[in-house]
């Protein structure tokens, strides 16, 4: 496993953290993430297991991460990058990992992060007739939304 860590450390502008066996975190800038993914794919990380995002509202940033797996080394590599919350635009990874196409559609719907180059990013995916801000952002108030759109049952009430 140390071979692969050393190989990853040789890439440009990456910060490598080995959290535990088989789990390596790679932090990169937004501009370099596609290049890093391409280099990792050439190293043997052929599978994109998960791509998703985290909302760090106090820092004003979204974190987008890619979980890659290598069947050759049996190692998970998690590539993390940060995007500005006010202007969330990124490059798409679908040219390198085709399955990113669908993950990116989901992220666009749930967080509002746009992916340049993915022509279906922004097309409705899971939610139907959604008019509010994207629901997985931390400033979305779920209870308030429920009170506006649904009617709760109180324990004394019977069947209508």
């Amino acid at each position, binding site marked *: 496993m140390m071979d692969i860590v050393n190989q990853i450390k040789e890439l440009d502008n990456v910060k490598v953290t080995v959290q535990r066996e088989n789990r390596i975190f790679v932090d990169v800038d937004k501009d370099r993430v596609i290049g890093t993914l391409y280099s990792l794919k050439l190293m043997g990380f052929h599978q994109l297991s998960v791509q998703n995002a985290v909302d760090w509202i106090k820092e004003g940033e979204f974190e987008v991460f890619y979980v890659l797996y290598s069947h050759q080394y049996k190692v998970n590599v998690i590539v993390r990058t940060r995007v500005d919350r006010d202007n969330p635009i990124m490059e798409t990874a679908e040219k390198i990992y085709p399955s990113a196409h669908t993950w990116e559609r989901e992220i666009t719907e749930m967080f509002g992060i746009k992916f340049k180059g993915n022509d279906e990013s922004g097309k409705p995916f*899971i*939610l*139907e*007739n959604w008019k509010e801000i994207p*629901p997985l952002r931390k400033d*979305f108030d*779920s*209870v308030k*939304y*429920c009170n506006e*759109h*649904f*009617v*709760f*049952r109180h324990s004394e009430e019977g*069947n*209508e």
Partner: protein
Amino acid sequence: MEKMTEEQVRTIANMLRKRSLWMIHYCTGCGAMELPPTMTSRYDMERFGMSPYVTPRQCDILLVTGYLNVKTLRRLITVYEQMLDPKYVIGFGSCTLNGGVYWDSYAVIKRLDRYIPVDVYIAGCMPRPEAVMSAFKHLMELIDSGKANGYKLYKKNLAYYKENQRKVLG
């Protein structure tokens, strides 16, 4: 031979209906997990005269197993409207009653009876197969005494149900 009155015909029809209930196998949430033991040899609901079937056109019972999000509700209403009269709805689990553990979720509807009429509710998370069969038994009694009138209510109060449906489905 004397001609039977309408009341007598209805009584006989109800008595026969309750003995042959076909349930549409449309699973919406995690409650579907309780159905395999209910249907198969462990609890065997077929000895009470109930069996699962595949198409809505030939079924009497719509068993709503678990939470319904807005997207599933649209399909559920389609299935319900495809079923022929007489049809009965059973709400299974606390999610159909009041949202259950998803009470603050933006995607899950809270009360099923605002969108389609429900004849019997089963409370619990999860209700065990015994509870499912007890609900079926209760439903049979309601049918026998002519009190399971959900499908008539849907026709009578169609404007109310459609308005509620339009509010969430758009």
